[in-house]
């Protein structure tokens, strides 16, 4: 380990603990939780402490950077690959950009860990899987460790290690309840969702790898500084190289940050427990793509054509996803599409060259989207509590296993329990907004937390989302007007579907008995949300568009260079605020004034007709993918496996030709002809011949002396004859 020359003091030596603190946490839980029978609180506390330790290290690193006037530090931990010209080390890069990401990830992550203590305690009981509690926190800590590797990597390859690692953790956590679907019925649904996330991400990783290979081949290295130093020369001589690199990176971004066309995994990823959705699919993992583009800013600024493509992809995604969100009924699905849409905002921002705006929105989005997701989790659990409350107090319900009993049922047995309990009552979806209503009265704390998050998302003054979204819109309007208009319309839809959600969930009358009996969540869940709510309200202070308050911009300028610090543009702010308020009003007209009754179909369905059907069914994108890509692929692989591999190669070539030939050679040719009829027969013939000879020669011994004497005489005569004729 050695220090970079630029660093003289500070806490930079703590950099590896960004990764190792969560690793220690997960190892403690992995090795000792069963042996020493940790209580659930202990497991959660260990994991949260590990994440908190990473947060403290991030703070110290940020402090060290600012104490060094923004100088970054590189801390090499270990050599990794040294082959010829290829040198990749595990080096920690501590600069303002990575420190920002580390703070967001570990800060929001720690809050979510604390929340998850309470959430998972109830969830494992609803799903009859108490022994998996520790596994959840192990996976969460693993995720934090991987994300830290991603943001602290000093080269594209180290970034990719973390990139893959968070993809793995996403898979593990989405498919946490792998043998069931979201309603607890035995099904392939959850594990399919995990597969979908992993495989779709893989397509993105393919793009990232191609970009990486091109980077190494033409720019000679993976390490950031070397790449950025070599880029301008190549851009001048062969600009297509940089364009190719950036566009392939865009493929990776589309995979990881859920842009068109690879966003399809994120809505399915809602199958995982809600803390997972909050942490991974709202605040941290999906922002890795945005981080990648920001980190590669020197490359992107060299190729304005690629920048435009990136911005347009982001903008189109933002609008597209927002339209889908309007037609969704599941509370988490609305938020998922909202995430895709907001990611589109971020990608559009960094595509337009507004890196500070993009990172700012990344930060505020982490606050309020995590808040929204966790509050939605609170809502869902509240519905579940109401559901079980009703089930327990109904005399006809079958007895469930008592809560809190550490059960060692196998997953098959648990599935049977679930089926039994589910069949006695009809399957109930606690996340369906059509089953909710009037939760304002039964879950007031959650209601207010949700309002905070919603207002921040809509971009209402003075919440954090207002500042960050407006900065994006302003930057877009200056660079690419088309992008600006797309984003503005998307912002309108954002406010509309969030309003719709608020009216449907919290206002009106409870549409089902369960909603009427919903219960509020415990403090261990609501207190972290209050912290997030405060950040959602006050987070705008990080980068206010007034002179002297561009804190984030100033901070990031240490890494990505001076950005234009734009003052507040009242026109843009005014248009977006008016549109948001208009959307709230329209949604109130449709959903708030005459609250939905039980069983009533969505009031937008008839007026919009097939448009609404498209929104409901996410514009049939999944179905198109299945028809165009996945089913033909399956058919080809089926053909290859069945016909080519099994029937031709195995059955014919191996079995018939090779094995058959071998068998024929050994059984027929060698065994029957060569051995039995050949050698064996010869051996037998020798024996027979000897026997025949001896049987016949035996007859000479006939016992008669006369014949013996005769033979002597014969011999004498013969010898004499020979002597005569010699």
């Amino acid at each position, binding site marked *: 380990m050695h220090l970079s020359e630029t660093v003289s003091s500070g806490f930079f030596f703590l950099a590896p603990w960004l990764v190792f603190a969560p690793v220690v946490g997960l190892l403690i839980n992995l090795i000792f939780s069963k042996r020493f029978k940790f209580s659930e609180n202990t497991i959660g506390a260990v994991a949260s402490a590990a994440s908190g330790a990473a947060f403290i290290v991030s703070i110290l690193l940020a402090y060290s950077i600012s104490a060094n006037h923004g100088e970054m530090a590189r801390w090499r931990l270990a050599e990794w690959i040294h082959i010829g010209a290829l040198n990749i080390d595990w080096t920690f890069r501590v600069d303002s950009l990575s420190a920002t990401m580390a703070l967001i990830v570990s800060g929001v992550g720690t809050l979510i860990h604390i929340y998850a203590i309470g959430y998972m305690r109830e969830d494992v009981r609803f799903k009859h899987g108490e022994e998996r509690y520790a596994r959840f926190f192990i996976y969460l800590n693993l995720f934090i460790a991987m994300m830290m590797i991603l943001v602290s990597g000093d080269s594209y390859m180290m970034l990719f290690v973390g990139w893959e690692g968070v993809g793995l953790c996403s898979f593990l956590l989405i498919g946490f309840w792998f043998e069931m679907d979201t309603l607890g019925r035995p099904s392939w649904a959850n594990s399919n969702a995990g597969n979908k996330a992993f495989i779709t991400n893989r397509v993105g990783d393919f793009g990232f790898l191609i970009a990486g290979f091109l980077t190494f081949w033409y720019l000679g290295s993976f390490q950031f500084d070397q790449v950025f130093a070599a880029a301008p020369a190549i851009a001048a001589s062969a600009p297509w190289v940089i364009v190719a690199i950036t566009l392939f990176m865009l493929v990776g971004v589309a995979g990881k940050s859920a842009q068109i066309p690879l966003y399809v995994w994120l809505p399915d990823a809602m199958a995982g427990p809600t803390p997972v959705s909050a942490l991974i699919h709202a605040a941290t993992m999906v922002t890795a793509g945005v981080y990648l583009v920001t980190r590669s800013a020197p490359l992107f600024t060299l190729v304005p054509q690629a920048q435009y493509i990136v911005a347009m992809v982001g903008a189109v995604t933002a609008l597209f996803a927002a339209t889908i969100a309007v037609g969704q009924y599941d509370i988490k699905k609305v938020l998922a599409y909202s995430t895709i849409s907001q990611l589109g905002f971020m990608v559009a921002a960094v595509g337009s060259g507004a890196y500070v705006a993009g990172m700012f929105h990344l930060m505020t989005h982490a606050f309020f989207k995590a808040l929204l997701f966790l509050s939605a989790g609170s809502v869902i659990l509240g519905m579940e509590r109401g559901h079980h409350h009703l089930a327990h107090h109904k005399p006809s319900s079958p007895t469930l296993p008592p809560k809190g009993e550490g059960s060692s049922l196998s997953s098959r047995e648990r599935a049977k329990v679930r089926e039994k309990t589910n069949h006695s009552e009809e399957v109930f979806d606690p996340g369906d907004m059509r089953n909710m209503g009037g939760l304002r009265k039964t879950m007031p704390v959650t209601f207010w937390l949700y309002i905070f998050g919603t207002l921040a998302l809509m971009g209402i003054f003075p919440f954090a989302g207002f500042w960050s979204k407006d900065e994006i819109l302003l930057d877009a309007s200056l660079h690419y007007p088309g992008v600006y208009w797309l984003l503005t319309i998307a912002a309108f839809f954002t406010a509309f579907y969030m309003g719709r959600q608020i009216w449907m969930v919290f206002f009106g009358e409870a549409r089902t008995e369960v909603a009427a009996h919903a219960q509020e969540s415990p403090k261990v869940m609501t207190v972290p949300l209050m912290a997030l709510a405060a950040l959602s309200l006050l987070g705008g202070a990080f980068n206010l568009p007034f002179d002297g308050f561009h804190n984030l911009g100033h901070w990031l300028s240490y890494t990505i260079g001076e950005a234009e610090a734009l003052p507040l543009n009242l026109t843009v702010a005014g248009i977006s605020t008016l549109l948001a308020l208009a959307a709230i009003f329209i949604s109130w007209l449709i959903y708030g004034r005459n609250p939905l009754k039980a069983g009533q179909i969505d009031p937008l369905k008839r007026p919009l007709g097939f448009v609404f059907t498209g929104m409901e069914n996410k514009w049939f994108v999944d179905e198109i993918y299945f028809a165009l890509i996945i089913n033909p692929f399956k058919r080809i692989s089926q053909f290859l496996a069945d016909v080519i591999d099994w029937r031709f190669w195995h059955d014919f070539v191996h079995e018939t030709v090779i094995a058959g030939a071998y068998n024929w050679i050994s059984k027929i040719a060698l065994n029957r002809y060569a051995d039995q009829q050949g050698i064996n027969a010869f051996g037998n013939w020798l024996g027979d011949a000897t026997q025949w000879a001896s049987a016949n020669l*035996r*007859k*000479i*011994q*006939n*016992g*008669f*002396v*006369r014949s013996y*004497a*005769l033979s002597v*005489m014969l011999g004498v005569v013969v010898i004499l004859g020979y002597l005569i004729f010699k």
Partner: protein
Amino acid sequence: MVPVNDYVALSAVLFTIGALGVLIRRNPLIVFMSVELMLNAANLAFVAFSSVFQTFNGQIFVFFVIAVAAAEVAVGLALLVEIFKSKKNINIDDLNSLKG
């Protein structure tokens, strides 16, 4: 002056007759006598040659042959008597129990 070849030829003829007797006759006594005849023929040849070379070696050899022949006849005839006691006849064709 008789050439010695004649004596040897006579010896050969007598020997042949003796051999024929051994082969043909089934009475062991005749067979024995044929054997004596053969010995005699050999003796004749010995003496003829000793006479040619004017030494006594041949005669001394004949002396010993006669002695041995006498002993052999004694023992052989005793054996024959023994056989007769058990078999009650002296057909040598009956003595074929050593066949393979």
